[in-house]
C-alpha cells in the first residue's frame, strides 16, 4: 500500500464522500444541490489524477516537448463538467418553483405542508 502513489485518489474519495454526506443529511434543497456539485466535481479530480504523466505537460503540441499528459480523460471531464452545471441549473429552477408553491425550501417543512392537506 503505497501512500505516495495513491494520495491524490484518496483525497478525491474523501471529498466525494463529504459531498455525498451533505446530500444525504441536509434538508435544505440548495445545500443538497451544492453537495451534489461537490460530489461530482470530486469525481473529476479522480479522473484527471489518472491522466497525469510524471514529467509531462499539457497536451498541446509545442516544439521541443516529448512527454504529454493523457488528453482523453480531459475530454471526458469537459463533457462531465457541462453536464453537471446543466443538472444544477435544472435543480435550481425546480427549487425556485418549489419556493413559489410551498413557501419554503426546507425538506421537512415541505413534507409537513404536503401531509397537512
Amino acid at each position, binding site marked *: *500500500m503505497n501512500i505516495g*502513489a*495513491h494520495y*491524490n485518489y*484518496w*483525497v478525491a*474519495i*474523501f471529498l466525494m*464522500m*463529504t459531498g455525498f454526506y451533505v446530500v*444525504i*443529511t*441536509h*434538508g*435544505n434543497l*440548495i445545500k443538497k444541490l*451544492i*453537495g451534489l*456539485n*461537490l460530489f461530482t*466535481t470530486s469525481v*473529476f*479530480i479522480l479522473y*484527471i*489524477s*489518472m*491522466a*497525469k*504523466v*510524471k514529467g*509531462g505537460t*499539457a*497536451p*498541446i*503540441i509545442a516544439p521541443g516537448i516529448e*512527454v*504529454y*499528459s*493523457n488528453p*482523453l480523460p*480531459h*475530454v471526458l*471531464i*469537459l*463533457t462531465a*463538467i*457541462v453536464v*453537471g*452545471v*446543466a443538472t*444544477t*441549473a*435544472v435543480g*435550481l*429552477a425546480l427549487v425556485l418553483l418549489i*419556493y*413559489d408553491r410551498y413557501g419554503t*425550501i*426546507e425538506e*421537512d417543512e415541505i413534507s409537513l405542508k404536503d401531509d397537512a392537506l
Partner: protein
Amino acid sequence: MELIIDITLLTFLGITALAINRIDKLFCVIMLSGIYSLLCASLFVTMDAVDVAFTEAAVGTGIATVLLLSTIGATDTQQRSAPRRPLFALLVVCATGAILIYGTMDMPAFGDPDAPIHQHVAPRYLQESQQEIGSDNIVTSILSSYRGFDTLGETVVIFTAGLSVVGLIGFRGMQKFGDRQRAAGITQDDMGKHLVLRIVIKMFIPLILLFALYVQFHGDFGPGGGFQAGVIFASGFIFYTLMFGLDAAMRVVSPRTLSYIAALGVLIYGGVGVATLLMGGNFLDYNVLRSNPLQGQHLGIFLIELGVGTTVFSIMVLIFFAFSSRKGLRQ
C-alpha cells in the same frame, strides 16, 4: 515543488468541503462552493489539464455561483433545519468510501507513465492527431473530431437545461417582470447609481466580448473552444444586466430570441453532421466536407465550435434572465 502545490491545494479543498457541510448561512456556503471550484481549477492546472481548468473556472465558478446567488436572492438565505440521521449517513458514506479506497489499491500509481491508459488509445491521439486533423490542441481535436458525437450530446444537454427552465418557468413570467418595472417607472437597477462602476463596466464589456471571440477561434492553438467562449460571452451580458437592470437587458435581446438562437446553435452542429451524411461520409465525418481532408477537418471543427458557442451563450443568458426575473415576483 509541484508536489507541495498539489498537497496544499488538496488540503484546502478538504477544508472547504468540511466547511460547506458545517456552515448554515447559505450565502457563505455558495461563496465556499465557488472557492472550491476555483481550487479545483487550480488543481487541474497543476495536473496539466488546462482546457478542463478553463472550463471549470468559467462554468463551475462563474455560472454555477451566479445561478446559486440568483436563487437565494429569490428564496431563503438561511438554512433552518438541523442535519437529520447523521449517524446513518456517516455509515453509508464511510462504507462507500471504504469500498472506493479498496478499489484504488489495484490502480496504477499517480503519474505512472506505464499505466494501461497511456498505452492503448492515447498514443495515436498524441502522435497522429496533428497530421490527421491539423490542430495543435489535442484536447480540441478529440473533443471536436474523434469524439465529436459526445460533444453533440453535450450541446444537447445544455439546450435541454435551457428548455427545462423555459418549460418550467415560462417566458410570460420573464416578460411580466419587465412590464412591471416599466409601469413603476424604474428604468434601471440601483447598482446603476454607482458612477465608477457604470463607467468601468461600460469599458469592460466590449473587451470581455472580444476576449470571448478570441477564445472561440483559438481553440485550435491553445486552451479554449466553444464552451469557454460561450460562457465568457454570456458573462458580458450578465455584467450588463447587473449594471443596467433586467428590463434594459431584455430589450437588447429578449428571452424568446435567445431560445431561437440556442435552437439554431444545435441545428448548426447537427446540420454539419447532416451535411457530411449528404456528401457521402459517415455522420460528422469532416473529411468529406472539402476536397482536402485537412481543410475539411478545419471547416468542420470551426462550424461545430460556432454552434456550441452560440448555444452555450444563449442558454446561459436565458437561464440567468429566468432566475433574475423571479426576484421581481417576490417583491
